[in-house]
């Protein structure tokens, strides 16, 4: 299987490590909603067909990629940086150093 890293180009799957279901959204860090945390930590989609997955280019640039892959045919229809996809609820209660 080849994954086309936006930085490095098409590379063999052995250069990547799977980092889980890309459909998960991390709750707000301060959230105490156990259902939401439980879903984030344990619930995984297991679709037959198109799936969003996070892969790290661990043997390359180490970026995390959001990969849309068909679990039936292994056809990869899109690859982008995971950081652009939004996998967290806004972290409202603290300011980052850049803003402070």
């Amino acid at each position, binding site marked *: *299987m*080849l994954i086309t890293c936006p930085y490095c180009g098409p590379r*063999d799957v052995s250069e990547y*490590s799977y*980092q889980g279901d890309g459909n998960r959204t*991390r*709750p707000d*860090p*301060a*959230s*105490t909603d*156990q259902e939401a*945390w*439980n879903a*984030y*930590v*344990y619930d995984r989609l297991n679709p037959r067909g198109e799936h969003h997955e*996070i892969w*790290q280019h*661990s043997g390359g640039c*180490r*970026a*995390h990629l959001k990969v849309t892959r068909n679990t039936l*045919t*292994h056809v990869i229809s899109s690859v982008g940086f*995971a*950081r*652009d996809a939004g*996998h*967290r609820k806004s*972290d409202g209660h*603290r300011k*980052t*150093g*850049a803003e402070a």
Partner: protein
Amino acid sequence: MSPRRAVSGGRIDRLRTIRFTFDGHSYTGHAGDTLASALLANGVTLFGRSFKYHRPRGVLTAGVEEPNALVTVLSGAVREPNIPATMLEVYDGLIAESQNRFPSLEYDVGAINQLGGKLLGAGFYYKTFMGPVIGPLKGTRFWMFCEHFIRRAAGLGRAGTEREPSRYERMNAFCDVLVVGAGPAGLMAAKAAADKGVRVILADLDANPGGSANWSDETIDGMAAADWAAETVRELKARENVRMLPRTTVWGYYDNNTLAALERVADHKLAPAKGEPRHRQWTIRTGAVVLATGALERPLVFPGNDRPGVMLASAVERYVNQYGVLPGRKFAIFTNNDSAYRAALALKKAGGEIAAIVDLREKISPAAREIAGKVGGAHHTGHAVIDTEGGKQLTGIKVQRFDDRTGVLSDDPRNIPADCLLISGGWSPTIHLASQAGLNPVWSDELQAFLPPQATQNWVGAGGFNGGFTTAGALAEGHAAGLKAAGAPAAAIELPAVDDDGLDPKPAPVLEIKAKGKAFVDHQHDVTADDVRLAHQEGFVSVEHLKRYTTLGMATDQGKSSNVPGLAIMADALGKQIPEVGTTRFRPPFAPVSVGSLAAERYGDIRPDRLTPMHDWHLENGATMYGAGLWHRPMIYALPGETVEQAYVRETKTVREGVGLVDVSTLGKIAVQGPDAGEFLDRVYTNMFSTLAVGKARYGLMLREDGLVLDDGTTWRLGQHDFLMTTTTANAGKVMQHLEYLLDVVWPELKVQLTSVTDQWAGAAIAGPKSRDVLAACLTGTKADNETLPFMGIVRGEIDGAPVMICRLSFSGELAYEVYCGAGHGTHVWEALMKAGKPFGIVPYGLEALGTMRIEKGHVTGAEIDGRTTARDLHLDWMLSKKKPFVGSAMMDREGLVGEGRLQLVGIVPLNNRPVNGGAHIVEELYEDGPRDSIGHVTAMCYSPTLGKYIALALVKDGKSRRGTRAFVSDPLRKRFGPVEIVSHHFYDPEGNRMHG
């Protein structure tokens, strides 16, 4: 001259004689022979005993699909079992053995299983080893006892126990066109593609490319087909853009046109040449693939079809034409199609006597009728073979009138003497690779075979693979496929001329003759036609279930010759058509693959090692090294005559009373830098780091998202935006990945950069009451007194001219410092510290002493941070900040992670002062009837020289409340039982006065 070698003919080198041994007997063959052809030439017909019934078996085929003639090759004490004799090239000094027989092939005790034939039918193992549910043996272990013997009798070759010394290699290759199979179609395809200037790889199973050209009797372009093939191969070899891979099985077709291939580099030699691997595992990435894998002939299913001397017609044709071997004297032929007539012609030409041709079809082609007339012998159309005769060798066949539309046998059977029976049930295209890169195969009624599926990857087929069985067709299709794969437009050329023999490859739709006796479908797994029917009677409808229940097609040959006949019988039983019953998908590997070639350089002497900068010093100074993952770390530095325990006890004592030095370079080190570094650490650690002063370090604890402990370590603040994080040796990679994920995926807005610097820093921990004095003696540029360098303080300075960074922290519980320097200065600084420490009696110490001191202190490591423990379980809840959320904070107080019943960290003191082992259970009582009711387990133990007794750490249910109580250690594996006292895990200096002093 060997008894069965034809006087002339064949493509073996008759001038080169090869000497080899089979079952202890010496034989000779010629260069170009396989073990099968050489043994047949010597008159050997018995090659092995069958899997279940120990029936005598000969050789059925001449190629990779061989189910019967599997042998074990011996080389020294190393045994390589289950090698098809048809694929093993003979070499001087080859030693091979038959398999699955005791005490010898001729007299086999296990053949008694034949008498118990009824017992060993389909599903035998499933039925039997559930155990009888009624009767006197109900619920007894009698069947378990029997199983041992039956299993031993029913098996394939036996693997050796010696370490395999061969070297294996992995190789990557890239090309535009990969051609699989170098028969006429493949050769033409490779040539057409190569002519277009693209990079071509041509892989073939055999030593000599040519495929069917090597054993057909045809002419191509006015020369013998084999000469045409040799000429074409010579031409291709001269091209710079063509790589030939002979003796190579392309066994897997993966995504993105990536194919796996095994090259048998040295299996045809007594020993590989210097530097040569035994096998080479290829990963080939290609633009397009030409599948020119040909077709495999199928046996017919009838009683006695497994007797030695019964062979595929095409195999006999190959033995005659390629190897110059006549595998019998008097030949009979049994077929459902025309192709077997070609073999009759070859036999006749080589001087064989044709006793009879039995064709189950009433009507046959004129071409076939003409050949039958030419070769002589009786010609029985509309007849079938209903049984064979003979013991370990065929002596005759029984023939009866047969209606190929109704399957009804009639008239009286007649006997025909023959010592070799050629059978042909038609041909199945070798679509295994296509099936891995395509949809479902397509059934052809006309050919009674599955044709290649619609492609889901970029491949194109040619020749027999497509279901065409003429050489002229193969040449034309090969040429077109080569052009297409190379991306060139179709173009007609004048193709090499081939004589057309006019034979019709379409078989009659009959694969089984139903008569009395064992008729084998899967020879290798001893599955009979009745077994398939029995499975149907017992309710198995799905072909996938049928396979698993009968084990049809599940042996090392993966049902290459049994798949279609098996389906035909199943379809017949179900009253359905074959395509309705379905086929099973072919999965990789196409043929068995050596495990060594998959491991290749990752096994044995070329496994990577991680060495610390001071590695050589450790070796030169008597360290016993210890493997920790890929790292090598000193375990002890034993003095002459010391045991391991004596060495670590001495080292520990010296540290506690004086000073010692330990290599900590293996700790994971991550530079966490950027304006948001402090905020980031606050989120990933359970405690605060943004408030840490520059020039100070802090012990930190990390949880996983699920609230369990991930890792611990100290993190040093080197500057406002610059932290150096340390992790445990084992978790360095895991922690890095965890942090990178959070930063990249969850909090990309944080301005933080992570860099692994594990290998950039060498680290040495100097520990003991005299450690400050040693530093004072060699450190320049800074002082090391308590004011300049307080507990958890950091200074920079120089040791013997090398810049160092020193943090005062302690794992041992003594006054201690970690000295970091650039990896290149590691040994230099280490030696300077040893020299400065000499007047103070410094010793180097290893992991055992380090471990002893951490147990005495009650510090946790990977044995306690085992992925199941929480911070509270380890009494680290004081590190859980209540002022901020952190990774794991939302999940750590879930039901089940808090409250009663948790395993908690405790200290253990054996009251009999005997050692206990890690993994031993803790129980409240020792019961007479055996160990039970564990309340926890020991995680680490040592002899504590400080306390003068054995101590251990353990995780015990509600351990904290059990402090001061008694329990027992129960270690039935090592037979160690005894009373213990549960105590606090802080055995030594619980207030930490020594390290703060």
